[in-house]
């Protein structure tokens, strides 16, 4: 078995990341983090920011960030929610790719939980 810093399967390391940001301790609630991850059911101005992170992050502005900070969301909460939004969108794309691969190879390779 391979050991060291290159070790571990993609599936295990992927789930470690998702489980940590969604289920582990944080300044925001698990429900808030899951909502940001899913990019659904958010209120403004957080909705605009999270949707930009998910779909065109290069368009995020200082104003988008400051608008959320002005609603009493702390910087640590914002740090977590932005990470959840980025990982959430990337994971939907990743799992689309894995599902397509599994369909072609006939193997159950999808990591989705």
């Amino acid at each position, binding site marked *: 078995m391979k050991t060291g*810093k290159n070790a571990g399967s993609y599936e295990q390391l992927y789930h470690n990341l998702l489980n940590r940001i969604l289920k582990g301790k944080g300044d925001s609630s698990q429900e808030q983090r899951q909502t940001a991850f899913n990019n659904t059911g958010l209120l403004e101005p957080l909705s605009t920011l999270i949707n930009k992170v998910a779909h065109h992050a290069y368009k*995020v502005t200082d104003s988008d960030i400051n608008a959320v900070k002005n609603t009493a969301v702390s910087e640590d909460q914002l740090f977590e929610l932005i990470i959840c*939004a980025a990982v959430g969108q990337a994971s939907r794309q990743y799992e689309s790719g894995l599902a397509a691969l599994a369909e072609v190879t006939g193997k159950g390779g999808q990591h989705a939980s």
Partner: protein
Amino acid sequence: MRLDILNNGYKFGTKLLFSIIKLVSGYPLPDAARLVFYRPDFYGNPAKQFTQRTMRGPSSWSVGDRELMAAYISRINECTFCVKAHSAVSASAYGDSDKIEKVLTDLKTAPIDQRLRATLEMLGKLTREHVIHANDVQAAMTAGVSPQQIEDALAVCFAFNVTNRLADAFGFFVPSDDAFEAGAKYLLKRGYA
């Protein structure tokens, strides 16, 4: 960066480490590296483990190939910091910066292997349209890409679709080309862990 905690919220030992790195390398630690030092238990540590496995772990794609995938995905996401950073690493790994420029300018005519071109096309579609289907995977396999190579490439795509979004949302500072060259040497020697 746009959050004060990512500029000033580090523990004393971490700030000391940042100072030592600047003293030794001549450049401030890039924001991509600073990010993973902030509350590393939440994001930095698990993200580094996935990225290290993806970019430096076992794969029949070379390090240069994987860094080129990272640069190409970053170009589609319009992430300036990551395009520059991973173009520099890929160019250094290949010993050929012209190839990187040609891929980023026109993938169809770039002087690369058909398997790599087909894989980049698949990753490009996934990044641009957020979804791919069996026919997209089949197109890459018809070009000679193995299922394992596709799985490896999809992992690269995930890692950089996360990092690109964080770079632009948090507002990573884009340093000089010399700083990116120094960063490329570090990433080639030490990796992401």
